[in-house]
């Protein structure tokens, strides 16, 4: 009985899904899906190699400091970094005094201790990076109706995070003539900028970097590519400050586990030896 009912249920589902297949195949044959500009012109990020990559990765502190400088002097005009506190910068190799000084160079929202009114004050190491805009409406108003996203987790929130940030920052170009010929409707709108690495090809962020925009303290030449790489490395750190500690812990754990597992293998072999039949020779 169960088998009979099951048989009919199974056939019913099969017929239903094959019917869907048939209608789908018919639609696909008669009106093939229209190609879109995103589909044809979107590009995946170019590979980027950072010192923190791979199982033996290490932070390149010099590079992280340069990346911090790019964030501070360029990106922070529009982007917040709300999960990072100034004290965290100590991990980039800054001394306590330097952390204090750099914190004080930021202005954070405060409260007047006498009148209780809101005001601003210089930052202290325990403060978090402030947001450049008081609220989302202000952020939209200043940025062609787009909100510049918080950058703390950016490299974890996109596929190929660091490579994506690097490609995006260096990927601005004029809209290809070929694209306009094929998709006249896809012309980049006013206030938007063509970038083949962005999901829908047009984003509201103007190219933020130009050569020699910052002056690196360590004398590195500030090309757009260099700054993009440095800030991508910095954002890799902000997204996961424990990245390197994690990999180092991983090595200790692996060495222990491999050793323990080899022991467990021999223990198993020994326990089983008396009841394991010797493979009989061909008789």
């Amino acid at each position, binding site marked *: 009985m*169960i*088998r009979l009912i*099951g*048989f009919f*249920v*199974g*056939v019913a*589902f*099969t017929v*239903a*899904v*094959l*019917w*869907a*297949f048939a*209608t*789908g*195949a018919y639609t*696909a044959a008669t009106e093939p*899906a229209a190609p879109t500009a995103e589909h044809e012109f979107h590009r995946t990020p170019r590979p980027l190699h950072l010192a923190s990559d791979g*199982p033996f990765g290490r932070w390149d502190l010099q590079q992280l400091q340069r990346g911090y400088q790019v964030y501070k002097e360029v990106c922070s005009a529009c982007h917040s970094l709300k*999960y990072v506190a100034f004290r965290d910068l100590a991990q980039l190799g800054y001394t306590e005094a330097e952390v204090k000084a750099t914190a004080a160079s930021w202005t954070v929202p405060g409260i007047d201790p006498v009148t209780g009114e809101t005001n601003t004050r210089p930052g202290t190491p325990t403060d978090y990076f402030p947001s450049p805009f008081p609220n989302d409406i202000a952020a939209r108003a200043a940025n062609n109706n787009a909100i510049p*996203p918080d950058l*703390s*987790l950016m490299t*974890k*929130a*996109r*596929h190929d*995070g660091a490579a994506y940030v690097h490609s995006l920052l260096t990927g601005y170009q004029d809209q290809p003539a070929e694209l306009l010929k094929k998709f006249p409707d896809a012309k980049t709108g006013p206030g938007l900028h063509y970038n083949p690495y962005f*999901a829908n090809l047009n984003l509201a962020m103007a190219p933020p970097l130009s050569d020699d925009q910052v002056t690196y303290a360590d004398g590195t030449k500030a090309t757009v590519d260099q700054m993009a790489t440095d800030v991508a490395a910095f954002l890799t750190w902000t*997204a*996961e*400050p*424990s990245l390197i500690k*994690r*990999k180092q*812990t*991983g*090595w200790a*754990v*692996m060495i222990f*586990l*491999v050793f*323990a*597992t080899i022991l*467990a*293998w021999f*223990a*198993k072999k020994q*326990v*089983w030896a*008396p*009841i394991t*039949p010797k493979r*009989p020779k061909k*008789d």
Partner: protein
Amino acid sequence: MSFPWAKQYEPKAPLMRYLDEKLPLPRFLYNAVGGGYPVPRNLNYWWNFGVLAGFCLVLQIVTGVILAMHFAANAGVAFNSVEHIMRDVNWGWMLRYAHANGASFFFIVIYIHIFRGFFYGSYKAPREMVWLLGVVIFLLLMATAFMGYVLPWGQMSFWGAKVITGLFGAIPIVGEPIQIWLLGGYAPDNAALNRFFSLHFLLPFVIAGVVILHIWALHIPGSSNPTGVEIKSESDTIPFHPYYTAKDGFGLGVFLIAYCLMVFFLPNFMGHPDNYIPANPLSTPAHIVPEWYFWPFYAILRAFTADILFVPAKLLGVLAMFSSILVWFFLPWLDKSPVRSGHYRPVFKKFFWVLVVDMAVLFYCGGAPAEEPYVMLSQIATAYYFLHFLVILPIVSMIERPNPLPFSITEAVLGSDDKAVMAANATPAT
């Protein structure tokens, strides 16, 4: 159960004798996973996955309880509290990655465990109850993992919850009220997040309860084995301890190596980047996908794209998705072949491997965007899925001629050579 030759628990130390009188817990354990549980001597490594599943449950409960100490189930701060765990809590990043990857590995283990059952006919009498309880555990596990994924309140948390609870909306008439009742609102928000947290905390303990029933039911007939031939004599069995404790110990080591590789070196590989974007009801992600372990069922859900008469496609998809797991409940009565093990079933064995490939295709399509050719591929795979369980298996079990079975487990291990059998019979069971 009890095989007459099962070893008896004999407490020696006075404390153990005292305990045995007042609360015979050590005796219980001895009979469950100690020397007092005789097990077929020929279990292969596919039999390790039950113990591994139990380990995963403990792992999830331990890491989960500690995460819950730092997590805040409030839509305004849940995402921030997870970042707080990642950045400020001592070893918080390790706990969270251990828990998130622990869920994935739990499913890897469970899928292997279930497919072991498919191949070796573990669902057949006298172990139907073990199988039924196993399917219940799987359903509870899916519910637990689904609600857990909502907790960090990222984009995929929110939109996944919205899509999955939206499925109830496909039920005619009562669907929408049910959906609103489940969520405590029209869309996932604070009410939903709070109840999901509460249930996510509760369900693992319910699972632990069902696991106890699952093992209890197993210990009545005892474990099956790769030949599918039942235990006939003492020489077919060995005590669980030390033989299988040693083997499980080694298996656990291999499991932990694979698991820790992911936790420490690729912790976000099985996750979705969008879940590092805070939930935003106003911005729909380009592709909403559930966690990878739901992909086969998600593919079945989305395969139904055409209405049939008065039944809307969405309802068909929902029915099919739930049925695709519910059919497992009927497996013991669909496959009536008296032979358990796929080794001795030449036709069944071929279809088993087709099913494995079919599941792989469904996996792939479930994670892909709802575009051609993935939709058409998933439709073919869905058709096969239902045909396999509801049409092919019953027919094969009626017409197939199985290969000859070994006389006993001992014979399968040692060959029918009399001397070898005698030698094995003489082996003292530790």
